[in-house]
């Protein structure tokens, strides 16, 4: 495993281009485009204000930079660095911005969710979508980029509009039986839309592409409901993580629950492998100590190496009960992700923040639990193979695959607290992001 040096970054805005050739990163108001393998600076663009959001177009030719405070979106071209485009929303304000799947339209959501404006880079036409819903995931594109679903709210009722992305024509408009829609997500096959309600009500509705209600699923009433959902890559399963610390899996044939995954604080099943991160103390020979201490020596003295030990079952994990009278409590299943080969599901129970649970989907059983020393910040699957990368806010990156797991210390000086990570599309490298910096990690083919 090779690590590059640290580069400056702000706002955790480090994104690979969809074709995998470039890496865009933001430093305050500058956008730096580097080559993904050599990290050589290819382009440098300067925006008018601090950048809050960047996104690559689907053909990797354009990048949009959104500055919400000034209400401006600037689009840069990689082919022609002289080309520029600035969209100013003016007094209407800007809250969110994204590309359309064809890479030629930009959808801006104005402040207070007054409307969504569709700006076209090809023609002079502008379209408006009225009454968009102010929720976490209000716009969803199908994987093939043909259809877009927008959540709307009129007269205190939720609706969904499905548009055809090629000509922005309204295909279907139907109401949903939700109290307060929280999010929508297309299945990877683009034929089923999952709609879920606010956390006060556990309700998942499944709509077909033509607007028919296929099924409703409600596990229980009154307690806090759905926290996160994830579709399996083959669209066979829908995993629903809820505040009662359970994941329920629905199957695509009957849309009924086939199993429930519990996340208890004590793991008793002997077939589960529990990897526990332990610190191994570095033994430094006293002869090698020199005064004043060299930088490398200092960093190696203070950085703690860690490795994984297999714990004997039964294992009890650190359980945190959140304060009862606060909103959005840190409990329940907050993170869910299927592996790209559909064989594993990684989950995180916010009540047990130091553990990552990996479930075997073929057997519908708990396979591995990774117990870390610090709280897990984020994890992401390798887009090519069943390999999971986990970061916990320290300067180590953890990799798990069915062959085993490894903890790697990033050999860089200074304080590098990895908060987020992002895999390259080829699965050969990944970007490790911290609050102020990022570095690239290159993996060899045979590793793990």
């Amino acid at each position, binding site marked *: 495993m090779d690590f590059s040096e640290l580069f400056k970054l702000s706002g955790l805005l480090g994104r690979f281009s969809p074709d995998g050739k470039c890496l865009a990163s933001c430093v305050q108001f500058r956008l730096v485009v580097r080559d993904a393998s050599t990290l050589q600076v290819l382009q440098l663009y300067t925006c008018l204000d601090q950048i809050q959001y960047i996104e690559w177009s689907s053909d990797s030719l354009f990048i949009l930079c959104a500055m919400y405070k000034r209400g401006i979106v600037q689009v840069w071209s990689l082919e022609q660095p002289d080309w*520029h*485009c600035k969209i*100013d929303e003016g007094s209407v304000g800007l809250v969110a911005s994204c590309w359309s799947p064809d890479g030629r339209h930009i959808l801006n959501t104005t402040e207070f969710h*007054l409307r969504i404006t569709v700006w076209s880079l090809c023609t*002079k036409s*502008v379209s408006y979508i009225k009454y968009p819903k102010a929720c976490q995931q209000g716009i969803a594109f199908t994987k093939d980029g043909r259809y877009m679903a927008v959540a709307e709210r009129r007269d*205190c009722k939720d609706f969904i509009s499905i548009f055809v992305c090629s000509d922005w024509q309204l295909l279907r408009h139907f109401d949903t039986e939700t109290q307060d829609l929280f999010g929508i997500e297309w299945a990877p096959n683009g034929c089923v839309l999952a709609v879920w309600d606010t956390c006060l009500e556990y309700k998942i509705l499944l709509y077909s592409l033509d607007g028919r209600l296929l099924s409703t699923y409600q596990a229980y009433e009154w307690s806090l409901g759905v926290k996160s959902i994830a579709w399996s890559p083959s669209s066979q399963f829908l995993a629903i993580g809820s505040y009662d610390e359970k994941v329920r899996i629905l199957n695509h044939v009957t849309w009924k629950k086939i199993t429930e995954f519990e996340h208890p604080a004590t793991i008793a099943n002997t077939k589960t492998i529990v990897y526990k991160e332990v610190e191994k103390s570095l033994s430094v020979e006293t002869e090698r100590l020199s005064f004043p201490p060299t930088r490398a020596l200092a960093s190696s003295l203070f950085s703690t190496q860690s490795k994984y030990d297999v714990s004997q079952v039964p294992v009890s994990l650190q359980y945190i009960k959140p304060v009862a009278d606060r909103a959005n409590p840190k409990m329940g299943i907050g993170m869910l992700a299927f592996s790209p080969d559909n064989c594993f599901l990684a989950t995180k129970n916010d009540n047990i923040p130091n553990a990552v649970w990996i479930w075997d989907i073929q057997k519908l059983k708990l396979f591995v639990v990774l117990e870390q020393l610090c709280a897990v910040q984020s994890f992401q699957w390798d887009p090519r193979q069943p390999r999971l990368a986990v970061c916990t806010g320290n300067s180590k990156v953890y990799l798990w695959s069915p062959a085993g797991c490894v903890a790697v210390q990033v050999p860089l000086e200074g304080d590098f607290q990895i908060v987020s990570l992002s895999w390259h599309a080829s699965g050969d490298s990944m970007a490790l992001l911290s609050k102020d910096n990022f570095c690239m990690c290159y993996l060899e083919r045979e590793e793990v």
Partner: protein
Amino acid sequence: MGDWKAITVPVLSSDSKNIFQYTSAKKVSPSSMNSQVLRLPLPSSKSTHGFFSAFCTEENIEQSVSYLDRELTTLGFPSIYAESKGKELNLISIINCMNELLVLQHKNLRAQEEVEIQHLKLGSDMEHLQNCYAKLKEQLELSKREIVGLQERDRQLQSKNRNLHQLLKNEKDEVQKLQNIISSRATQYNHDMKRKEREYNKLKERLHQLVMNKKDKKIAMEVLNYVGRADGKRGAWRTDKTEARNEEEMYKVLLSDYEQRQKQLLVENAELKKVLQQMKKEIISLLPPQKQKPKERSEDGPVLSDLEEDIGELNKENMWELSCETVREQLTNSIRKQWRMLKNHVEKLDNQVSRVRSGALNEKDVISREDHELETEKLELEIQQCKEMIRTQQQLLQQQLMSPCDDDTTLILQDCYLLEERERLQEEWRLFREQKKNFEKERRSFTEAAIRLGLERKAFEEDRGTWLKQQFLSMSTDCKHSENVTAPSAFLGSSDQDNRLAISTSQRKPHCVLSVPVSPEPCQMSQYITHNSSSAASKTPAGDSKPNQWVERDKEETE
């Protein structure tokens, strides 16, 4: 007749008092004696005297005899009188009567004894029963008390149960109440939320109106130039046709998805059916055909025919790839039946095996032990042989190691090794020398080439100098023609040169004309060389020499 008197059984005693009591009672009514059932104790000899003297005295002998006779006759004895006259006593009959009376007495005594014994027995029985009764009564008391205690406990438990039920009900009621509260609060909350949302929507609408009315010039997009579409096509208008096309495409997408899923399901179904068929065949093959009883056979009859039918139908089915309910049911039912039969069969076999095993256990043990011993013997032999072999080998090795003790052999061996090494080294030396020669040759050739290059460069520099000079001269003569003259560019200079040379000196020797087009290339090369070489040959001396040459050549030609 007489009064029945309750006469207690007097204890056998020789007390004359008793007798007197008795006799006194007797004296009271002699007539009543006749009908009295008397139980008389056996009088003792003394009392007999008294008894006799009391009964019969000298005065009433005849009366007493007649009385006795009457008594005896009433009792069934023959009369004691000799004849029916009276006064003469029949001694024989008297003796017989006496004997009979004695016998009767004995009998009575015996009966009395028996009765007494029985009486005693009954008395003891009664005591025993009374004891039992007392004990049972005690037990009854105890159990009654126990029952009372248990009842008490039962009552307590029941009351506890009732309390718990009550509590449960209360809890349930509370839960229900809380749920109702929650639901009412939720509806109230929703209502409030809706109200606030409506207000919020109104504000948004107002804001939207204001924003749109302002016609903010700032809301605009500035773009350098519009970009072409990603797919290269031109944008299309939105018409009904496009709407219809979109709908069509959407349905196509959905249909293709369903078709794909259906195909997958069909494939799965076909595989599962194949597996079931295979299972069925295997089950049938496992089931032994002879052991079936006639009853089973009769069951199998329809089953077999079912099987045949099934197989036939399923084969047909595979050909047609239909899947109707009845065929599916038949298949599953037949498999279930076969499986049950197989299970029974396996259970039977298990029983048989267990029976057989328990019966023939000993023999097996014996046999196995013998085999085991044979095997161990064999293994031991093998081990011994191996050990011997190892020993001999060790000896041989030692001999080998020991034998070259003399120096000659060691020296020879060492020499052999050394020779080998030396030969190898010699070969390597040879190769090395060859390579060295090759390198030397190459180096020499390179130096020669470098020298040649240097010479050539010199010559080119001189040529260039003369040529430039010539150009310069031509430039100074024809100023009007020189619009496009740019001195440094080799290309333009050469073309002008060509023209001028062609015009002015058509009689030039061909090699001169030819030399001009040749020069641009070497000039270029010289430029390249001068750019790249760190030790650039100075231009000026070459340049100086060149024009001289050129001028000389001109001179030659003009001359």
